[in-house]
């Protein structure tokens, strides 16, 4: 069974935000508008975060694209009181929108602030509404529940269906999330971390590889390759 993981090469990322936009179109995250965004209400399953290090004149901005880290030891799941968030056999962490009671405990427990809450009923301007992804798996979430990056789980299903229709076995390379597919700088890699021949496995073991807040023991399945 594959263990899905991602590697992001910070040398190649130039913060164009294509991943952020692709994710929004693929996953139907609502438009919060400038007002609500300023109030910290925007829903961005993937974000490119600027970490400013040092002080003038020696300033360095470290840009980190941040999807859900898909922790192997996920604090978000430990705290959920109703099992509304869970890990699939292939290591992807999902939210059951029909089960979630909106207590936001998981959002508080996730050290990466990856989980987003639906403060209002989701909205889109008319022009965007016409282009919502019709896939039932990403239909707009109801008000009052938590949502987050799923590694585009609907694409995994589709890839499996496609392989089956074509009468060939499904392979790990059949499936990529939208952010990986779209990445302008080819900075993102995706695949089966358990397969020693896969690119992600090899990159994850490179000396440049590190993970965010590794000391917390969450064991993320998203690796970064150091800049420089």
């Amino acid at each position: 069974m594959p263990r899905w993981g991602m590697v992001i090469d910070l040398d190649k990322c130039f913060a164009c935000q294509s991943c952020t936009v692709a994710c929004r179109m693929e996953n139907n995250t609502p438009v919060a508008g400038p007002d609500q965004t300023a109030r910290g209400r925007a829903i961005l399953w993937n974000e490119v975060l600027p970490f400013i290090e040092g002080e003038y004149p020696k300033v360095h901005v470290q840009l980190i694209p941040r999807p859900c880290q898909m922790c192997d030891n996920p604090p978000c799941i430990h705290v959920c009181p109703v099992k509304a968030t869970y890990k699939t056999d292939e290591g992807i962490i999902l939210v059951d929108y029909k089960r979630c009671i909106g207590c936001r405990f998981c959002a508080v427990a996730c050290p990466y602030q990856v989980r987003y809450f639906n403060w209002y009923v989701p909205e889109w301007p008319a022009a965007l509404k016409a282009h919502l992804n019709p896939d039932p798996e990403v239909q707009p979430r109801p008000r009052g529940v938590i949502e987050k990056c799923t590694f585009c789980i609907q694409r995994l299903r589709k890839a499996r269906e496609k392989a089956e229709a074509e009468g060939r076995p499904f392979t790990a390379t059949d499936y990529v999330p939208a952010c990986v597919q779209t990445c302008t700088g080819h900075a993102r890699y995706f695949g089966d971390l358990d397969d020693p021949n896969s690119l992600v496995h090899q990159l994850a073991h490179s000396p440049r590889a590190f993970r965010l807040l590794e000391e917390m023991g969450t064991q993320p399945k998203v690796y970064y390759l150091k800049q420089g």
Partner: protein
Amino acid sequence: MDRTHRESDLERTVLGPLRKTSMQFWLVIAVLGGLVLMGAVLLGRQWTTGLGVTGLKRPIYWGVYISNFVFFIGISHAGTLISAILRVTQAEWRRPITRIAEAITFFALILGALQLWIDLGRPDRILFLFFFGRFQSPLLWDVTCVTLYLLSSTLYLYLPMIPDLARLRDRMTDAPRWRRRIYTVMAAGWHGSHEQHRRLERGISIMAVLIIPIAVSVHTVVSWIFGMTMQPMWHSTILGPYFVVGAIFSGIAMLFIFMTIVRRAWHLERWIKAKQYDYLGILLLVMSAFWGYFTLSEYLTTGYSSLINEVQVLLAKIQGEYAPWFCAMVFCNLILPFAILIRRKGRTPTGAFIVAVGVAIGMWIERYTIIAPSLTRPALMARFAIYTPTFTEVGLTIASLALFALLFLLFFKLFPAISVWEVEEGQAVAAARQKAEELLRQGQLEPTLPTP
């Protein structure tokens, strides 16, 4: 009971407010009711539009409502724990104030549970907690312990009320029918026989002992919804005991506040006396000292280290945007109690009331400054966030306090605020002791050692 019963002084004063209601009382009820109504409107709006009406945001997912939750659960320790400890240690002076304490517990718990519900994004799914509850989640520990505590403190409030209920059944013959019915049903056929007394005392002592560990567990698990996460300054072993101490501290303050109000309004000055204020005042001081000690341990340990994420939160509290809150908290919880209560002359109803209001505010701030600052500065954050509660949150807090007071006052319009039979028992005990001493002094009684 015989019909020619002449009401004792105690009975007359305690039952008086149950018979006659002043205009002022209804005025207060109307004001409180109005505030509760405002809260209902605000809550209705929150439920129809979403939690967007609050000041919450990413990453400050918890704010005023969760602070209120911890606060109310905290003051619920007033009662049960204090009255149980005093009962177990057989402190005689507890007798006139146990009922008030136990009622605070009961209503504070209901309000506490309500806060959790207000905080949910999907209030319609609240029952999922019972259908699909996962015991690995600290939130479910809370649900379990609070439910258990609510059940046991209901019993603990009810049991010592039975003899008084029977008295009401027999004495309040001119009360409206529905009230007489309530008294009759709740008195559960009590007629004061020796056997009934024996069983009741037994039940009360078992509950008193049982309720202490439950109460401690409740506040510990409340702290663990924070302590079990890895957020800076939450992930600390001190949180459990710190919360328990804070809970008892704020509980005593609440007891002071309500005791003083009931004493004034119900004219119970002759029964709730200087002694209660004196002893309880000392207890409050002790808790204040404990609280200060825990606060110091927590802040110094964090501040001395160089763990950047932790220190960042600490700095937010002592010199950042939370500094005014922090100073207010230290003033209310440490300086004010010691300034006023340290001298016996300060431990008067007025002094105690002022301190108690201060401590109640200070402890609310303590909850708030534990919850909010940590969330504004999580470990991985590109920018700090700022949380400003909105009118809805403030309004619902005020409405919750109003509802708490409303329930409390109405309850004591229906039931006596002082446990009449226990005070009478206390008087009898005191009288018997005095008589025995008298006889002993006159040499008419042989002092004997109790046989083991």
